[in-house]
């Protein structure tokens, strides 16, 4: 018996080492880099821990060397928070009725609908965002369709706007929301709804007091799975926002590209992780037993 568990510990230990090396190594590297400063020729000057990169998140020297608020970071942070929250809410509104609808179909229809939701989710993210360029761009598919209905229409001008980013984010992550809520909805006992209605509760009261609370684990898991990749998204704002409406993901990438200020980029990444952790903590408080990923996966 003890021999078997010794083997089990070895079976866990080696993969754990690999995970630590491959995954926690990079996270520690970010943390370490965020306490360095920019080397004169770009890259990193590793001499001694400094907090400049963090100060630079909020203040940046202007032309005369005086500190002024760092608009780039603050606006990217608030815009990311705002767009990720909107994306999560829109996905919730679309996914809850859809998940409930699917959960009440026959086994065959259920399997088919789930497959149909999963397919676009596995299609390449870059290609899926690119498809929206074709639709939204000036004289693209949407403009041409509207112009054929309404001659003289000037075009929506949607591409390279915050709305376009929002559409792209919802499109990218909607399946993440449906699947966990479906997993909760499927376990749901619909007799409870009949019971609630029989006892005289209105439809909206039944949904608010009976259905939604029981769907909470799925809703929380889905919200996490949508919120996190939206908050740190790079592709969608780059392709559909045209790089003007910078989100945190773009700002980080910029530090590792043209700006060559890696320490600053690492500090922004740490800021993003802290922001996400705070949101997760808030969500955990909302949930009965805390959110977990098992709802969807």
């Amino acid at each position, binding site marked *: 018996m003890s021999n078997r568990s010794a083997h089990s510990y070895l079976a866990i230990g080696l993969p754990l080492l*690999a995970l630590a090396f491959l995954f926690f190594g990079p996270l520690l590297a*970010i943390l370490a880099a965020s306490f360095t400063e920019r080397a004169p020729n770009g890259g990193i000057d590793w001499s001694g821990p400094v907090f400049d990169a963090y100060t630079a998140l909020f203040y940046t020297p202007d032309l005369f060397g005086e500190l002024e608020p760092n608009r780039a970071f603050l606006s990217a942070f608030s815009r990311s928070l705002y767009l990720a929250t909107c994306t999560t809410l829109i996905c919730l509104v679309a996914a809850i009725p859809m998940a409930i609808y699917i959960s009440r179909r026959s086994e065959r229809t259920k399997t088919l609908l789930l497959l149909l939701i999963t397919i676009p989710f596995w299609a390449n993210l870059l290609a899926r965002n690119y*498809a929206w360029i074709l639709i939204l761009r000036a004289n693209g*598919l949407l403009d041409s369709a509207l112009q054929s209905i309404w001659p003289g229409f000037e075009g929506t001008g949607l591409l390279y706007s915050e709305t376009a980013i929002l559409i792209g984010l919802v499109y990218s992550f909607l399946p993440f929301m449906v699947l966990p809520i479906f997993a909760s909805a499927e376990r749901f006992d619909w007799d409870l709804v009949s019971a609630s209605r029989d006892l005289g509760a209105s439809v909206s009261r039944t949904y608010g007091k009976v259905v939604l609370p029981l769907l909470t684990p799925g809703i929380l898991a889905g919200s996490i799975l949508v919120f996190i990749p939206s908050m740190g998204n790079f592709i969608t704002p780059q*392709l559909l926002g045209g790089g003007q409406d910078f989100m945190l993901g773009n700002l980080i990438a910029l530090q590792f590209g043209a700006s060559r200020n890696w320490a600053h980029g690492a500090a922004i990444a740490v800021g993003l992780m802290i922001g996400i952790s705070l949101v997760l903590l808030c969500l955990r408080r909302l949930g009965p037993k805390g959110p977990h990923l098992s709802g969807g*996966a």
Partner: protein
Amino acid sequence: MSETGKARHLSGRVLVVLFFLFLYFPLFALVGLSFNENRSVTVWTGFSFDWYLRLLENEDLLLAARTSITVALASATLATLIALPAAVGLARTSFRGRNSLDGAFRLPLLVPDIVFAIGALLFVLSIGLKPGLATLIIGHTAFCIPFCYLPIRARIAGFDWSLVDASSDLYSSRIRTLRRVTLPLLFPGIAAGFLLAFIVSLDDFIVSFFLSGPGSITVPVYVFGLIRIGVTPEVNAIASLLVMVSVTITILFFIAQSQSQRKVEK
């Protein structure tokens, strides 16, 4: 059916139609336009297969495709080798902290890819590697781990360990038990994990963007470069190809899975 029942039924249908229109219209538009003979991308003039034929002559793209497939195969394999013993080991032991270890193997799902991407870049540079094929494989293996781990975990949840005990009670060696009993029973989970990891690696852009070096660019990184230059029929064709590859793998995966489930039910 009552009036409100009918109305609800109808609104359900409308919801489903709108939902799937939103999910599928962009994909069909993209693939449809890739067969457009015209250069002006969004105006349809006639059917043509030309843009795809041209891709076959594109040396850069072919090289990128080779890199993508190499990286996807290598990282899906490595991630499976890491996830499999972990999943089996965690299922057969109980100790304090087991749940947090279980959580650790899912954790990469909770870190935004851009954060992991720059972390991986800083990490490989700090251990003295230069961006290239090796660093791509290192980075991809890390984010593939949960995709291999979760299906195996799910398979283990419905696993009958008495079969393994029976095998060793009947004096089968440990290796033989593993080969003849445990692995075949876990195979659907292992295969599912491998395929998911393969697709995820093939589709990844952001990690590859930071970890690829000169001569080791993956297809999504190559496409991103083209999109930045502009919307062209070539990009339509490559993007459609990417979509079609993942859709085909997903459907095959789904068929295989439902068949193995049917076998279990029998």
